[in-house]
């Protein structure tokens, strides 16, 4: 995996009238993981979207070297299509990836329409999409939501593998998650 870097300087985020956080800076290079902690509504998802370039920060800059893979609460898989076909669309865009569907526990579900999948299964399917994208920078927004104990272990293993291969993983989660290096920041330290 090529060298990647994610740098944020002095970020502040405003939603509506509320200033969510300010003065937030971080720097991640190849192989590093970081957990962003914080209570609901503190701005974890907004931070992820700012880092992904989908949301403009009030002030501050973000620099990215390497493409972004985003996993949030929306799987971006067509609910009416069987899972296999829904994933094929992303494979066409991303090229054949290395997503191991059996490892994700999805191999028996390829014929099932996405809308019939459970929350955890949808999360696993979104992970398959993320793996297939082969993006060096992972931004994961509450990746553990809806996953069972096995699923949690799976996400931790995937993140560890991704970082071992030289990727970056930034995980926003209010739940404990084991990341390589174990680095974490708490958004409560940056609230206005």
């Amino acid at each position: 995996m090529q060298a990647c870097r994610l740098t944020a300087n002095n970020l502040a985020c405003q939603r509506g009238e509320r200033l969510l956080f300010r003065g937030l800076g971080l720097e991640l290079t190849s192989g590093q993981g970081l957990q962003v902690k914080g209570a609901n509504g503190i701005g974890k998802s907004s931070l992820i979207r700012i880092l992904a370039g989908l949301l403009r920060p009030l002030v501050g800059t973000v620099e990215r070297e390497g493409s972004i893979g985003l996993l949030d609460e929306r799987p971006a898989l067509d609910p009416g299509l069987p899972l296999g076909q829904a994933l094929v669309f992303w494979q066409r865009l991303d090229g054949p990836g290395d997503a191991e569907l059996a490892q994700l526990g999805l191999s028996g579900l390829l014929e099932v329409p996405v809308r019939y999948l459970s929350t955890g299964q949808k999360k696993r399917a979104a992970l398959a999409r993320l793996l297939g994208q082969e993006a060096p920078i992972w931004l994961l927004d509450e990746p553990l939501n809806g996953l069972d104990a096995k699923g949690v272990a799976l996400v931790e293993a995937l993140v560890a593998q991704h970082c071992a291969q030289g990727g970056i993983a930034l995980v926003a989660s209010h739940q404990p998650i084991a990341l390589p290096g174990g680095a974490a920041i708490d958004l409560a330290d940056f609230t206005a």
Partner: protein
Amino acid sequence: MRHFLILLRRDLSLLLGGERRGATLLPVLFFLAVAMLYPFAVGPDAPVLARTGGGVLWIAALLAAILPLDRLVEPDLELGLFDQLALRGISEELAMTARMVAHWLSFAPALLLAALPASALVGTDVATLKTVELGLLAGTPGLAALGVLVAALTASLRGGAALGGLLVIPLAVPLLVFGAGSLSTGGEAGIALTAAFSLVLVAITPFAAAAAIRSARG
């Protein structure tokens, strides 16, 4: 271009088939139903029907194009599709262009075919039918563009579908005026104006719809 084709293929298969099977037929059946009901409402006066039939076909086509409005953009916005595309460097403009082409392909060719039996139902003559067909050919790209534009503008609103239908109608008035107007003059000038207005809409829509989607991200 590769991305465009992948997007077009997906949009088209979603609009034409998949879970929404039959939904494509709906605008066409709606169009035929209007043409069928019109003689019942107006009465079997052949000259009146023949004189007004072309215009009714135009109104039916306009309304039929509005039917699929609510599933053009909104479901994909909720899915986070456009965010994922943006991360892959695929612009909203490209996605909206593909959506516009797919929308046109999904209803216009079927509508042009359905205009044949419909014109028989309202009893228009061959010359009028030809003008209607040419006019629809010139006007439906504009209707498709307008549909995508309004669907994108209202996608992030609650109850956007109903509002979308209301928004399309006034914006489609120029198309109707020129398109149906070409019937009374029997001429190419009306069709050319319809085509011109269509082109303007087709040219504006990818950018305006893309801006709407980006602002919905908020």
